[in-house]
């Protein structure tokens, strides 16, 4: 049953050291505010699952919150590399980072299997590639009816999934639209789910077939307007492309990254204060 609460309360109650955490969003509705709160609360030893790790996971990895990343494609979309992710994989900074990688087809099928309460996903994938050679959790099975060779991969069952959506209502039902990615599957595959929303309304006014997550599938709903910045929220605000470009500079250097995160995340009490501080530093052109 969803509890309407503050983001800090939701993270504190539902996301613990050592958890397997999925923060999903396919370039749209990325739960950035929630990621910051995890950094603020200094969670450690997390296994981070995401189809497309981007800036949020770069921050969590760089701040030493992650032990392992399970993923399909890790980059700064439209810009280039994730420097903190790369530094961890290439140089073990700030700690050694285990990786387990698939493809988008693999990750999305594994979420479907998780939501379906199945132990594994079956798909046509990975033949002829080195992906299975370096990931021993990708197995080959044969169709019991035709004998066709297929790939089997374990389902994704996060301890907690975190997503951002456009609307919640006062009971905690959640409505999400536009590019919905794997968010529904990620929530239904998880033991607990935290959803930040742009606004909480009396009536979702959701048409039939809309993507609604009923309140009894969600643990906490938190109103965090603008909580997907610098990604976008369809019908609320656009993507801030400047931030993605700036992140390439900020994240390239370890000390600059640490200074930025201290100033903008650790020393701010919540998302609203982060946005105020960022507006100030961005105005002076000094992002660190």
């Amino acid at each position, binding site marked *: 049953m969803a509890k309407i609460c503050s983001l800090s309360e939701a993270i504190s109650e539902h996301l613990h050291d050592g958890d397997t955490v999925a923060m999903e969003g*396919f*370039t*749209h509705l990325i739960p950035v505010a929630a990621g910051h709160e995890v950094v603020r609360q200094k969670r450690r030893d997390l296994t981070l699952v995401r*189809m*497309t790790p981007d800036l949020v996971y770069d921050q969590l990895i760089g701040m030493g919150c992650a032990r392992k990343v399970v*993923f*399909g*494609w*890790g*980059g700064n*979309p*439209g810009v280039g*590399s*994730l420097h903190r*992710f*790369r530094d961890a*994989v*290439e140089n073990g900074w700030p700690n050694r980072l285990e990786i387990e*990688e*698939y*493809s*988008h*087809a693999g990750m*999305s*099928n594994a*979420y*479907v299997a998780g939501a379906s309460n199945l132990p594994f996903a079956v*798909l*046509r*994938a*990975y*033949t*002829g*590639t*080195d*992906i299975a050679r*370096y990931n021993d959790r990708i197995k080959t099975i044969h169709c019991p009816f035709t004998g066709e*060779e297929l790939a089997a991969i374990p389902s994704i069952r996060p301890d907690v999934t975190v997503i951002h959506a456009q609307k919640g209502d006062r009971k905690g039902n959640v409505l999400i639209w*536009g*590019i*919905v*990615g*794997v968010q*529904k*599957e990620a929530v239904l595959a998880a033991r607990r789910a935290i959803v930040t929303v742009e606004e909480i309304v009396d009536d979702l006014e959701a048409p039939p077939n809309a993507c609604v997550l009923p309140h009894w599938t969600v643990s906490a709903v938190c109103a965090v307007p603008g909580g997907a910045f610098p990604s*976008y929220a*369809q019908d609320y605000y*656009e*993507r801030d*492309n*400047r931030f993605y*470009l700036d992140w390439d500079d900020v994240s390239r250097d370890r000390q600059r990254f640490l200074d930025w995160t201290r100033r903008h995340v650790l020393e701010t009490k919540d998302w609203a204060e982060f946005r105020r501080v960022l507006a100030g530093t961005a105005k002076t052109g000094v992002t660190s």
Partner: protein
Amino acid sequence: MTEITTTEMMTVAASRMLRNGTVCFVGIGLPSTAANLARLTHAPEAVLIYESGPIGAKPDVLPLSIGDGDLATTADTVVSTPEIFRYWLQGGRIDVGFLGTAQIDRFANLNTTVIGPYDKPKARLPGAGGAPEIAAQAGETIIVVNHDKRVFVETLDFITTAGFLDGGEARARAGFPGKGPTAVITNLCILKPDPVTRELTVASLHPGTTRAQVQAATGWDIRFANDVATTEAPSEREISVLRDLLKRTGEAHGAA
């Protein structure tokens, strides 16, 4: 018309590969530019599918990321990512996969995972994304990539996406639903797989490009077809539509 750049030539040549009415699974970057140019010129009925979920996207400006809002609002429908990969790609409904890459070998296998050893990489690249299954399951694949010795390499450190594997009948034996790469379009030339060995062979040089330039930008002894053609230069219309598209895109994204 100002002088046509090699990148413009590449984009136009790639766009011509997309036939009108085909269903195309589009990668971000150069492939997306080429696919949209095709849609705005000779292939208005081409159906563009992006892995984030939009089917039949008709963006007015090029997306910066694979999940831009403009893709969703201009699409015929937007579905979930699992649905894209399960029903539409694995379901066998994609004619053409349009891909970019970080590295490619002579049999059009692709590496977007790692440079150097996997466990101690010199450079960690983003990884597979949608490419392995697009290249396996789309009816055919077209690859658009800059021609450079660091890109066209003798041996890949990691095969992320299978092309023709070891060449010859290797791909057919592996049982992929799709027939594999049918063309690689670069800023210098168009390469096509040899019908028997499947080795990438220069089929057409872009105007002004020499064989020596292509060899110098390739990490193996590149083969040329017996009858190497000259790629038809871009028409005025192709170039003006492309430049307008890029101008609109720059303005819309704040030309950061």
